[in-house]
């Protein structure tokens, strides 16, 4: 179950089939998209194994798992493959029993998906700010990010609840969390300084067992980003 296993790279042998009773996720320790899937696996208590992929030096066999060569990918013991992080999360919620993360009510489910759309510009903005960490001029992008984040603040204000799906944590919260975790670590906190409800939400999220179990070590993330931005496959 270790998420800290060394990643598999070009030239590595493909892993064998997934044992019964287990589901496998192809992941990468610092990938926010894969973190979504790990959050759902953890929150639902699903027995799983993690295979980390070296995204700068991908094994050839990985393209048979996902033609796009991206993580996360789920593989079950029937050899079925599911990719695209949001699709993997919904699949897990459908297949596995226990706590349902998506609401049963069709309108509430649609509402979560509409909020997800509202969030859609945030990942690329955070990524481009990450890349510009050492450069001066990111004020334009920070403004854009603040704008997108205000839309989310508005949702919480209108709903008058702690979380995006109501008073308990649900799927939409897990889907957007990884980027907020990174904003804190990477000192983009000033992007949430006009959004008090979001700050409360972030604090509440940190108390969630699944979120806290998967919190990244800030030094590890920063170290990774330094190497990643220098194009080192390590």
């Amino acid at each position, binding site marked *: 179950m270790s998420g800290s296993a060394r990643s598999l790279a070009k030239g590595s042998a493909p892993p064998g089939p997934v044992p019964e009773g287990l589901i496998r996720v192809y992941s990468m320790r610092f990938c926010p998209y894969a973190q979504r899937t790990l959050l759902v696996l953890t929150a639902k208590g699903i027995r799983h194994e993690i295979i980390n992929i070296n995204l700068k030096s991908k094994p050839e066999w990985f393209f048979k798992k996902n033609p796009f060569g991206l993580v996360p990918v789920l593989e079950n013991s029937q050899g079925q493959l*599911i990719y*695209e992080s949001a699709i993997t999360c*919904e699949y897990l919620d459908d297949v596995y029993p226990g706590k349902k993360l998506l609401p049963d009510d069709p*309108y509430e*489910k*649609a509402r979560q*998906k*509409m909020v997800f*759309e509202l969030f859609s510009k945030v990942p690329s903005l955070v990524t481009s700010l990450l890349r510009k960490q050492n450069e001066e001029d990111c004020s334009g992008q920070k403004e854009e990010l603040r704008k997108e984040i205000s839309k989310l603040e508005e949702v919480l204000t209108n709903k008058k609840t702690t979380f995006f799906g109501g008073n308990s944590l649900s799927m939409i919260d897990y889907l957007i969390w990884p980027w907020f975790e990174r904003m804190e670590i990477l000192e983009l906190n000033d992007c949430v300084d006009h959004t008090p409800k979001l700050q409360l939400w972030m604090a509440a999220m940190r108390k969630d067992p699944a979120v806290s179990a998967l919190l990244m070590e800030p030094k590890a993330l920063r170290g990774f980003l330094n190497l990643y931005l220098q194009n080192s496959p390590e």
Partner: protein
Amino acid sequence: MEDATRSFGKGSLPPGPVPDGLIRVYSMRFCPYAHRTRLVLRAKGIRHEVVNINLRNKPEWYYTKHPFGQIPVLENSKCQLIYESVIACEYLDDAYPGRKLYPYDPYERARQKMLLELFYKVPHLTKECLVALRCGRECADLKLALRQEFCNLEEILGYQNTIFFGGDCISMIDYLFWPWFERLDVYGIADCLNHTPALRLWTAAMKQDPTVCALLIDKNIFLGFLNLYFQNNPDAFDYGLAC
């Protein structure tokens, strides 16, 4: 056709609340995204009313239905609003009984959603081709890119060895793709299917589907709309209506 009604423009009065037992879709007769939602409404036999919006001259009240004034939007009798065409289609499939358009099996459902990802460049490319042709510009590169996307879809059909994208019966994913394929001819780019026989078979099979048939847009009316639309005429949206 249920949607053969005059569009609402600036200065129009908002329609009242949606009566019980009915669902309303804010639409436009020629919009491919709204077409998806109308296909699902029809396929599931859902009682609905259509309110067409003049997209070049949007009513002020429409921004209370959608923050950016886009279509389609569903509104039910509880005043709940659902937008984004794919979200609206899924909502209808979940909320209404009868024929399920998405498969029951979670893996098959995930598969359809993965297929939708494969399709994402098609709407933009078809629109760009249309605009280029209408503005008298060359679009060989765009057509090449579109053909490539079609090849990807062709590969799926070949690999699956099924008529439709979800298997041997029509299902949600086919309806989500269809509107852009219906428009290839009227946009002047039907030759983009020249090298994809399975895709051509699929379009032929789609045209036999009662739901697709019922909503097929008359070619001449569509051309009339396009002519006015590209002249920036706000009356474009009501072209071909009886009175």
